[in-house]
């Protein structure tokens, strides 16, 4: 498996996603001789996983079955162990497009957090790009580095344990894009400008509170950034089901007699509970002049 390229068969050391149905899933590290418990029974890695194609159905010891999926950054985002609040794919999608990320892009990110966005960035910029990610919390920085190694993407990412507001990203004039998800992004704008290429680049700052956004926009203007835009994006999911509505009985006076009973039809209804707010996304371009 590779987070940056698809492979057909499961190997030892891979991270695979066990899918149980109805959106229920969890990641496993494939190891020779290991076992994984599920509510359907035991999955034996050597027998059921290693050498099998991703996407296979695996029948567990109790008789139920699960699917084993190839990991993707999107599945990882839904299943990773949280060390911080993470960014979900809805925000990640618009960030990726608005920062114009693509293979070969050099990106600077802070804070690394739980690595949700990091994995998505690495996937997008590989094989010719690179991610420089900064995390001021020592354990989180370490955990991130471990995960990147486990997921075999470490050659596309450099983790630095430092404070981006004080010491910047550790690189200068190389980045096509900078992403900030920190408590005081306005303090890092100067460093962001320095990390970005001289010819220009894109910047994004993610903040839950409007006051943070205001200060950031002011800092952006002071540093000469242009095309400053703030937006938020929300996901609205629909549940597809069959609905039945009974037909009312309005009496039998008509000829022919009206049909009674129920009518059945497919519906797409909004989910009862849905995410209201994650954060505001502020985008800007570094001006050449």
């Amino acid at each position: 498996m590779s987070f940056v390229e698809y492979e057909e068969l499961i190997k030892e050391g891979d991270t695979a996603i066990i899918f149980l149905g109805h959106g229920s899933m969890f990641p496993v590290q494939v190891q020779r001789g290991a076992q994984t418990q599920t509510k359907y029974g035991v999955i034996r890695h050597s027998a059921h996983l290693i050498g099998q194609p991703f996407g296979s159905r695996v029948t567990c010891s109790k008789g139920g079955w699960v699917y084993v999926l190839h990991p993707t950054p999107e599945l990882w985002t839904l299943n990773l162990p949280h060390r911080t609040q993470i960014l979900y794919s809805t925000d990640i999608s618009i960030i990726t497009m608005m920062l114009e990320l693509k293979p070969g892009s050099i990106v600077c990110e802070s804070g690394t957090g739980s690595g949700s966005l990091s994995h998505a960035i690495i996937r997008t910029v590989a094989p010719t790009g690179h991610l420089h990610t900064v995390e001021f919390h020592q354990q989180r920085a370490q955990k991130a580095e471990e995960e990147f190694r486990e997921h075999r993407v470490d050659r596309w990412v450099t983790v630095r344990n430092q404070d981006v507001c004080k010491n910047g990203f550790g690189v200068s004039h190389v980045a096509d894009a900078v992403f900030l998800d920190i408590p005081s992004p306005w303090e890092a704008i100067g460093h962001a400008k320095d990390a970005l290429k001289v010819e220009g680049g894109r910047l994004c700052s993610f903040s839950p509170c409007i006051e943070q956004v205001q200060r950031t926009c002011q800092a952006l203007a002071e540093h000469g950034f242009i095309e400053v835009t703030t937006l938020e994006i929300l996901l609205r999911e629909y549940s597809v089901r069959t609905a039945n509505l009974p037909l009312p009985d309005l009496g039998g006076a008509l000829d022919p007699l009206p049909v009674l009973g129920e009518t059945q039809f497919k519906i797409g209804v909004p989910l009862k509970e849905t995410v209201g707010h994650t954060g505001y996304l502020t985008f800007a371009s570094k001006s050449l002049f």
Partner: protein
Amino acid sequence: MEGAKGEGPAGDGAMENSVEHPRQQDHLIRDGDFVVLKREDVFKAVQVQRRKKVTFEKQWFFLDNVIGHSYGTTFEVSSGGNLQPKKMMEEITSETKEAGIDNRNIVDDGKSQKLTQDDIKALKDKGIKGEEIVQQLIENSTTFRDKTEFAQDKYIKKKKKKYEAIITVVKPSTRILSIMYYAREPGKINYMRYDTLAQMLTLGNIHAGNKMIVMETCAGLVLGAVMERMGGFGSIIQMYPGGGPVRAATTCFGFPKSFFNSLYEFPLGKVNCLLNGTFSSKALPPESKDSISVEENNGTLLDDLQTSPKEMEESIVEVIENNHPQQETMEVISQEPEYKEHKERGNKKDYIQELQRKQEQQKKRQIEAATLLNERNADGLIIASRYHPTPLALSLLEFVAPSRPFVVYCHYKEPLVECYTKLRERGGVINLRLSETWLRNYQVLPDRSHPKLMMSGGGGYLLSGITVASDKQKSESCVLELQKTEEPTAKKRKVQESDSTLEDLP
């Protein structure tokens, strides 16, 4: 470890005209480049060609002077239609002169501006610069000093927008082109809003090295977006209806030629043959002209077919669309020049030979595409067309490997509800999700921050999912288990293992 930027795909990377140091010169505008002109929030995609008149936002000019400048440079139109680089003026944070407290005494009688239309025109004709005109307007407004600071700010911004014609030349990207198309010609892209496109690219895990199947009738915008995210690595098979795929928007991205080496196309009309093993490379009967023109309009609701005057005004993509012949010969735009040359020489024999050669080449490509499809191991599927999505999804998913994501876009929700249902019946897919995204932008100014407008319901819907091994295929591991039924049960059942040498570690 620091990662160095590696080589891009294929040595000749850059555009046809510039071969040396493509990466170092990436930020400079070159002759022949595909660029996007930007004025405020209005965009237009054009190709840089010397002495070629370009119209944009009620002005006309030549692009010659942009060559050699960096992308992001701002220009203004000067006499003779020449562009002059113009440095962006800093916002006049006017040392607060006079300002009022509120608007209770300001009466809007339409007479507060003393300069008439003719006066302003005279100033323009004299060649007075934009910011000078704005200054004149301020001085000749009787109510300006009574406005609050915020209102003055707003007034100045508005006048600047109108009279200071700053044009920026930017590099095309999915971001810019998708925003451009949604704002100016949404009908051509089935009303796919740019955030919806962004979701598709991520949900579909589009990345370098994939083997993608793309079925779109969005003028080639979706194809271009996929190509950008793949960076020339991997391969794409574009399915198309009728005579050939429309790639007007794809051309706007300005991809290097090498990106097109791994782009294949395959006619929808032959999908069923391919699926039941009766594929042949013989040409399909040519489509009638009518169907082609309907394709251009995407055959939307009857009201939409009446092109509004605004749409007729200016095409957002210059010329390229007009020159692109929608014949059985699907030409990539870069091949156009030689095609025309032959015609001009008037040598009919050469022209026919060239045509035959191209047709042979296409036949060969089609067979290659068929072979790629027949491997049934594509890494993903993107559908975004004016056609009903269900039959497309049901058939095209057959070409996709297990454990791969797919995304289906539709302008309307109901066809996707049906598609969802049919996919459930078909099996072999999990994690089906029907969704849309809401986008809201904000004005952020000191003491004046508030949401602007909310975009929902008009950006289209997405159905996404992941393929899995279909029930027909039994995985090897089943052999090891003795199962009478495949129903999951809560009761513990002992499994007889036929091979006791299997590992049995704690």
